[in-house]
């Protein structure tokens, strides 16, 4: 298949594409040992791949993200992709210079194969029968997509949070295929606190009577449980300061408190709203599988130590953390940086002082943009000097 050469640089209206593999004995061997196939990967791309396929950047989305990183899905679509402010002509992921790709993760529910897909062996949806997916499995599926697109070596991979975990896997295990890794608000292993919040989310879903062991596809899905899980998630993405700035103790649609249990504070209705819209676009089973993948991710245990994980990497790293992020706190980013420095690797690190908590990596565009832009431009220069195809 020829690649997206016709698309103009401004993302504008984009359409997701689909790549399928694994139907003929070429399934994806998962970390669990199981072989999964067929596998469908939903992806979007922006900009143009150059003749020697050396200007490709893969964006890696976070937990609830999708392949729709930039642009709009229709001319009257009011919501651009999740990283629209960073992707486009003249923006840091400059589509006049780079060919930018984003794919929905394996195990997700926004176009790629996940627990909501039909199991070809049974004809039913997988549900909880879907194999356990790891962050590394997500990356393996992305590698198949890169092979398909004819991209041998990415100029960069970039992602925040769970996307940063994937970027770490790319740079740790497949550094011959990635020149630079941009890792935002991420970690080499989730903290006990993070696991705890994920556990609360999964418990909320599984205790919804509609959950029915994940076999809810023929009836009503567990929307209440899923929306509570999302509410908890949103609390962890914010910070004390950002909540104070955004809501304070302001009341919603009333002047004084009445003595009832109805939602009264703005922050309550915000969480209700966020939980409510989430259930329209997310599958409860994917919530369980993806949050487990995040919990299980642990580079120290997998490789013996962080130093071992990066011992042979040839990628360059840009690592950014955010001062008010208590879900993926800056000390976790610094641990990665320290291991890379001990191994004499090329790594730059900045803790951006920001009040927005974990969400900062999606909001602090103006602070992180110049660093990402500068990092990408040095990667391009290195590439030109090395003459690496």
């Amino acid at each position, binding site marked *: 298949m020829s690649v997206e050469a016709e698309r103009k640089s401004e993302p504008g209206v984009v359409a997701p594409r689909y790549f399928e593999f694994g139907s003929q004995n070429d399934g994806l061997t998962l970390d669990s040992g199981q072989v999964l196939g067929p596998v469908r990967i939903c992806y979007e791309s922006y900009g143009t791949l150059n003749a020697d396929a050396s200007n490709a950047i893969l964006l890696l989305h976070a937990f609830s993200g999708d392949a729709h990183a930039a642009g709009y899905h229709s001319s009257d679509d009011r919501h651009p992709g999740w990283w629209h402010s960073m992707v486009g002509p003249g923006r840091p992921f400059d589509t006049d210079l780079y060919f930018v790709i984003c794919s929905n993760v394996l195990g997700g529910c926004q176009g790629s194969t996940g627990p909501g897909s039909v199991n070809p062996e049974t004809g039913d949806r997988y549900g909880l029968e879907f194999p356990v997916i790891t962050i590394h499995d997500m990356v393996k599926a992305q590698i198949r997509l890169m092979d398909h697109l004819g991209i041998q070596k990415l100029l960069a991979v970039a992602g925040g949070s769970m996307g940063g975990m994937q970027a770490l896997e790319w740079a740790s295990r497949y550094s011959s295929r990635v020149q630079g890794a941009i890792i935002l608000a991420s970690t080499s292993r989730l903290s006990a606190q993070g696991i705890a919040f994920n556990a609360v989310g999964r418990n909320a879903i599984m205790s919804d009577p509609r959950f029915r062991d994940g076999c809810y596809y023929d009836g009503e899905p567990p929307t209440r449980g899923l929306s509570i899980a999302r509410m908890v998630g949103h609390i962890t993405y914010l910070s004390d300061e950002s909540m104070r700035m955004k809501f304070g103790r302001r009341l919603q649609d009333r002047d004084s408190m009445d003595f009832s249990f109805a939602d009264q504070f703005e922050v309550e209705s915000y969480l209700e709203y966020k939980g409510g819209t989430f259930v329209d676009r997310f599958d409860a089973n994917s919530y369980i599988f993806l949050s487990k993948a995040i919990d299980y991710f642990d580079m120290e245990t997998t490789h013996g130590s962080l130093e071992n994980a990066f011992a042979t990497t040839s990628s360059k790293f840009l690592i950014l953390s955010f001062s008010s992020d208590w879900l993926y706190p800056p000390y976790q980013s610094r641990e990665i*940086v320290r291991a890379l420095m001990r191994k004499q690797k090329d790594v730059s690190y900045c803790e951006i002082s920001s009040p927005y908590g974990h969400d900062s990596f999606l909001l602090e565009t103006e602070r992180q943009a110049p660093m990402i832009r500068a990092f990408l431009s040095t990667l391009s220069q290195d590439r030109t000097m090395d003459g690496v195809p």
Partner: protein
Amino acid sequence: MNPGNRPHVAYDEIIKLVEPRSTVLDLGCGDGELLQRLRQERSCRGRGVEIDEGHIRTCIGKGISVFQGNLDQGLADHESNAYDYVILNQTLQMVHRPDRLLREMIRVGRNVIVGFPNFGYYLNRLQLLFRGRMPVTGTLPYEWYETPNIHLCTLRDFRNLCATVNIHVKTEAASHKGRPVSPIAANLFATEVCFLLVDSLKSI
């Protein structure tokens, strides 16, 4: 200190002290110019530590590895003997505990280079003596209440500190606005000094 005012002569002095192809950690690396010159002129592999986001961005743009860190919190992020040289240029007088930072530098680097303005320079002394005011000069352009230079010292003070914390002075270069000054007259006539140091124990 405004980088435009910072004499690039200081960089020349430092670059002369660094062996080719060594590894360098530059503390308070600013816009990364010294590291860039060390890479070009000495084929060094360098890394910078800097606190300012704008400077960090500039370093990244130059392809220099830079780590955001606060020197007052020590060098805990860096391994012992990890670098051939650890450099602290025009920053010693700005940290809370220069003595502790020096020991940390000696731990992390096999060699340490420190460059700083000499407070013993005679014009500083004359301003204090005749005007009875804290000196304000070309190399020390700040009023006392706004200066980032909280631990100014004379060349002789620094020699004493090195002796106290078991640091051996390998070489010492003093200059007056770029021109070399003899060691005998240095404490009085040098505006800038640059030391190459090693651990007394390691140097035996």
